[in-house]
């Protein structure tokens, strides 16, 4: 493997801000403004180092050199160790630059940072995934993690919706999950977002959740979506009998260093990059409304 990293000629600095160099291996356009990138570590020892630590739910700082860094969750599971993936929408300088890259280009990656979903505690349980729009990526890593270790878990149900059909991400994977008989997938679009040949449900995600009425018995629920969706989903879960210890979400916040040092991402006294981004509902309820 080519050594593309130049070392300083004097003492070596143990530089926590130094990224790994990654090769962009595959670009998939999920929606007109959202892409999934698959990256390969250019240095195999860095790849092994990453996967010796990485647990599902953690995030990293992805950068194009010259434009800056952005934090995204790692959207692929630790069960697939040849690559990492991320899915993002272009809203700022770095994300727009990333969407201008071609397969074969180089980006930087620092991670894994943050905490993770305690998936080991969920063996034997039913897992319910509830996601909206561009917020499916953080949960997709968990879905694949669970499906890669399918026999360790009980029922798997996914409720996923977006504003319109074209806003649904991971369309190929949704198709795969639909076909599996060990996954119950419910897809929905907002009223007015359907196309003539849409076969899924029509309705907001919290409404569809209410209609599907999954049992809370022995179930862990993972929720990820825009604030408005979360706001209406939690009461439905409450109504369905879920306790706050059974529900997990993942927060996003503006982050820079990812290491707890730059002072930017705290919600109250909790640093999202250290004690998050994964939060259980009861912990989240204690945090001040600063996110």
């Amino acid at each position, binding site marked *: 493997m080519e050594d*593309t990293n130049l070392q300083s000629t004097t003492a070596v600095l143990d530089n926590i801000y130094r990224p790994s160099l990654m090769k962009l291996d595959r670009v998939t356009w999920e929606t007109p403004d959202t892409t999934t990138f698959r990256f390969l570590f250019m240095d195999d020892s860095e790849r092994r180092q990453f996967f010796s630590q990485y647990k599902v739910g953690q995030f990293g700082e992805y950068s194009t050199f010259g434009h800056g860094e952005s934090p995204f969750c790692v959207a692929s599971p630790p069960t697939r160790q040849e690559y990492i993936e991320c899915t993002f929408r272009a809203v700022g300088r770095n994300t727009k630059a990333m969407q201008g890259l071609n397969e074969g280009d180089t980006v930087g990656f620092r991670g894994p940072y943050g905490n993770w979903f305690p998936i080991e505690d969920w063996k034997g349980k039913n897992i319910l995934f509830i996601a909206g729009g561009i917020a499916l990526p953080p949960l997709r890593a968990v879905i694949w993690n669970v499906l890669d270790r399918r026999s360790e878990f009980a029922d798997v149900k996914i409720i996923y919706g977006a504003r319109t059909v074209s806003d649904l991400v991971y369309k190929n994977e949704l198709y795969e999950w639909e076909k599996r008989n060990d996954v119950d997938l419910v897809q929905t679009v907002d009223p007015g977002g359907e196309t003539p040949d849409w076969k899924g449900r029509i309705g907001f995600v919290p409404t569809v959740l209410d209609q599907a009425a999954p049992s809370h018995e022995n179930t862990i629920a993972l929720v990820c979506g825009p604030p408005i969706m979360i706001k209406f989903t939690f009461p439905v879960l409450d109504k369905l009998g879920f306790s706050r210890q059974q529900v997990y979400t993942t927060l996003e*916040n503006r982050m*820079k260093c990812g290491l707890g040092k730059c002072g930017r991402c705290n919600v109250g006294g909790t640093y999202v990059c250290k004690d998050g981004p994964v939060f259980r509902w009861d912990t989240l309820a204690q945090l001040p409304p600063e996110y």
Partner: protein
Amino acid sequence: MAISIHANNFQTLFDSARDAGYRVIAPVRDHTVTLFKPVEKADQIVLDEILPTKSPKEYFLAEHEPILTYCRDKSGKVSIADPSLEEVMQPTLIFGVRPCDAAGPEIIRKVMTWDCDDQFFLRRREASVVVAIACVEADDACFCTSVGQAPDGTEGADILLVPSSDETGAVQEYLVQPVTDKGSEFIKATKGWKEGNPSRAAACDEVKEKLQKRFDPDRVREWLDAGFDDPYWNTATLSCIGCGTCTYLCPTCHCFDIVDEGDLTCGSRVKNWDSCQMCQFTLHASGHNPRATQNERFRQRIMHKFKYYPQLFGVVLCTGCGRCQRSCPVDLALAKLVERIYQLACEPVGT
């Protein structure tokens, strides 16, 4: 064995430090302000002010720190490199630091070594010898004793000079107190020191009398624990204009930004000072801002300093230097706000 140093020998000290490979930083006049800068002549240094305008924080947490350089060749191949260590590891004598300023880096060290180490900060600190000078005066903005510091405190100092004044009140001689091994080694390696006590006693007692504790940080923290939504925040800081002056001059504020500078062929990634008081500090790419008003941003500052940091690291993120009050363009004094919170905390419930 007692050691002392006379101000007349500061030049000898500086020269011998330079001979031993140190650059010498001390407070000097720059236009109408006093800043810590490289200095040649000891008679340029300014020690008769309460505090220099800026703390020496920039010598540990650089205002602008390149953290890597990158290069992209014509084929698109990218290579990155750590910056040269020369500047970060440059042996430096930082002379004439007040105890509140000396304590700053030690407090910042806790977050810089939280789970992983920021080598830029650590190596700069390692390479520095901090010679602190105890205070003989204080003004109304000083409140070091309220936050666990003292006008003759030794936290963060490698050597402490305790002034003794002559009959005119001018300080000429100092009792030398080595605080760390590094400090003792430095004394051995340099000149200007002399054996024996200074001819007069230390002059710190008066200032200690003056610096009564103004609040109890533990009571303040109790109030802050429950006070996130208190209406106090809606009006107490309306005059704040949201500049970064207080945070940049503060010896313990350490928030930073990471940006890339350069173009597609080459450039660097840098760490710059940033401020939680700036309006886009927490602005999300989506346009959502969790701290959209200045009141919320100011609350964050007080919470971070007096609740979150103590919760995480056991120490208040403040050394009571008072710069936030002296340099605030609208005379908004953080210490006064915290005093008010302390009063609220001490009020019997129900008032």
